[in-house]
């Protein structure tokens, strides 16, 4: 049994814009079109508004259950948790923030690692959760994602990461920053091993997460209308001293500028990913990385 309790998130301490589907009540109001949505229908449509297509934010476990065959997966690396390496001075101590994040999200850390089958393929997937300090990346997130990638290299498997993050976690300073390099290094090895990395960008994906693994997918997919960028809109507005257009840094904007491969509706996401894996998981090519260059040169 997992050591950490898995009960559904509590929303009392969460700001309104972070709230997702209320657990009580029969109807849920769409955050985009205000339509009253019948809860069982909304669950049926994977938390996508049937009226306007708005994608509600998902918690990490729901996200993973939508991906894996029969919704079944094994959670990994849940023992890796954050500490307070900088003794960070803040209005609220970092250990208290961590405790609160665990209570609010029901998760030990901002990312959940998993192993299971997707369309029959062995897949190591990670899903980030915005309820855990804004999905921020500190040392524990960096370590977990790195372990996930290394496991995939060992087992000749695919990696899929669902990004949802405000960026690097401030409370761990440069340690958080360096996780960008650490994960990218692991992805370099995955790349050399000719194994797939599918990056799925969900609302929102910004900062150090975008500027590292999220943009390094062999294929990069985004959910519709997700906010995706390096700098946050507020920082850009302060820099250029003007308001940004409404569609700026949304999935559709990135697609238009050639930065992502496709925008995929959540209800089609699993099928889309399975087709990609069918293309990418080629047993004939799964051989040791050092043979690649030398073989080409000697022929």
């Amino acid at each position, binding site marked *: 049994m997992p*050591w950490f309790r898995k009960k559904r998130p509590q929303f009392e301490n969460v700001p309104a814009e972070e709230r997702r589907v209320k657990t009580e009540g029969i109807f849920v109001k769409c955050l985009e079109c205000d339509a009253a949505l019948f809860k069982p229908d909304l669950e049926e449509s994977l938390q996508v508004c049937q009226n306007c297509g708005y994608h509600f934010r998902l918690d990490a476990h729901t996200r993973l259950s939508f991906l894996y065959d029969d919704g079944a997966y094994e959670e990994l690396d*849940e*023992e*890796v*948790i*954050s*500490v307070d*390496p*900088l*003794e*960070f*001075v*803040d*209005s609220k101590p970092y250990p208290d923030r*961590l*405790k609160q994040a665990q209570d609010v999200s029901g998760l*030990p850390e901002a990312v959940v690692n998993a192993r299971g089958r997707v369309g029959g393929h062995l897949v190591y997937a990670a899903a980030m959760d915005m309820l855990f300090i804004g999905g921020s990346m*500190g*040392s*524990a997130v*960096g*370590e977990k994602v*790195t372990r996930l990638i290394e496991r995939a290299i060992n087992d000749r498997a695919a990696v899929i990461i669902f990004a949802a993050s405000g960026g690097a976690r*401030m409370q*761990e*300073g*440069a*340690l*958080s*920053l*360096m*996780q*960008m*390099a*650490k994960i*990218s*290094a*692991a*992805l*370099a*090895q995955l790349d050399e091993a000719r194994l797939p990395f599918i990056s799925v960008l969900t609302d929102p994906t910004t900062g*150090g997460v*975008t*500027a*590292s*693994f999220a*943009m*390094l997918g062999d294929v990069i997919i985004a959910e519709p209308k997700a906010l995706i*960028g*390096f*700098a946050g809109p507020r920082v*850009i507005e302060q*820099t*250029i001293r003007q308001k*940004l257009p409404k569609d*700026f*840094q949304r999935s559709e904007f990135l697609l238009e*500028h*050639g*930065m992502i491969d496709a925008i995929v509706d959540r209800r089609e996401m699993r099928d889309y990913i399975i087709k990609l894996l069918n293309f990418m998981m080629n047993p004939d090519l799964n051989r040791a990385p050092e043979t690649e260059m030398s073989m080409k040169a000697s022929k």
Partner: protein
Amino acid sequence: MAEKENNEQNVEPFDQEKGNRTAFERVQLARHPERPYTLDLVERLFEDFQEVHGDRRFAEDPAIVCGFARFHGLPVAIVGHQKGRDTKQRKIRNFGMPKPEGYRKALRVMKLAEKFGRPVFSFIDTPGAYPGIDAEERGQAEAIAFNLREMVKLRVPVIVTVIGEGGSGGALAIGVGDQVLMLENAIYSVISPEGCAAILWKDAQQADRAADSLRLTAEDLLRLNLIDATVEEPDGGAHKGHDETAQLLDVVLSQRLAEAVSQTAGFRMRRRYERLREYGRWGVAPSSARDE
């Protein structure tokens, strides 16, 4: 919860006074308007510098300078952020804040170094990657991410020195190497102290407090095992003597380069990965709690 920190050994306690200078005093020294910038050090450390321009994709970015030169006779490649000294230069250099084309130019030159078997010297001095509409449109995040992954794979020695401001991802994007050095008063941080204070206390004026919290000095980074060495500056800071700063740096760069050159590419790349792999301090949840 966290009973034991499995990767934390022999960590000395943080000390607020740090060699008689506060963290925020270091921040001010790192940003000092008379501090030597990349080109000031390049002209003192290298011979025959030939600057090359452009990313072959979109534009030239003057916020990053690149080129070839000789270091004690040995041909090398150079990449570095470049700040401007006066108002006009600051504008041209965009305050040392690169756009995607700057990072792509830097990677292009580093790949040339790899092709011709020449070491790379990288100099970091930026408030951060430029946060603007055009930079976002052209893939600022992708440019940074791609550099991180590709620099890991470079087969030639890469020696990185943070000479002033190491501003977040915009600094790290040319900062992956075999040796990462920091000048004594340089800083390296995930966010500016002002930005941090604005988020934590809704008050950018409390930047000095944030600077302490963030552990962004060279000593802090060394203690956190994120860099390999700190490099002494002249009394009062690097701005007091560009020549002396270059001389002090030259000694360390020569020694670190000699070491890197003596190693095989395979050894260097393994070590580079192992160094990155160690980055971070996390905990392990107690096993008793996991059995419940």
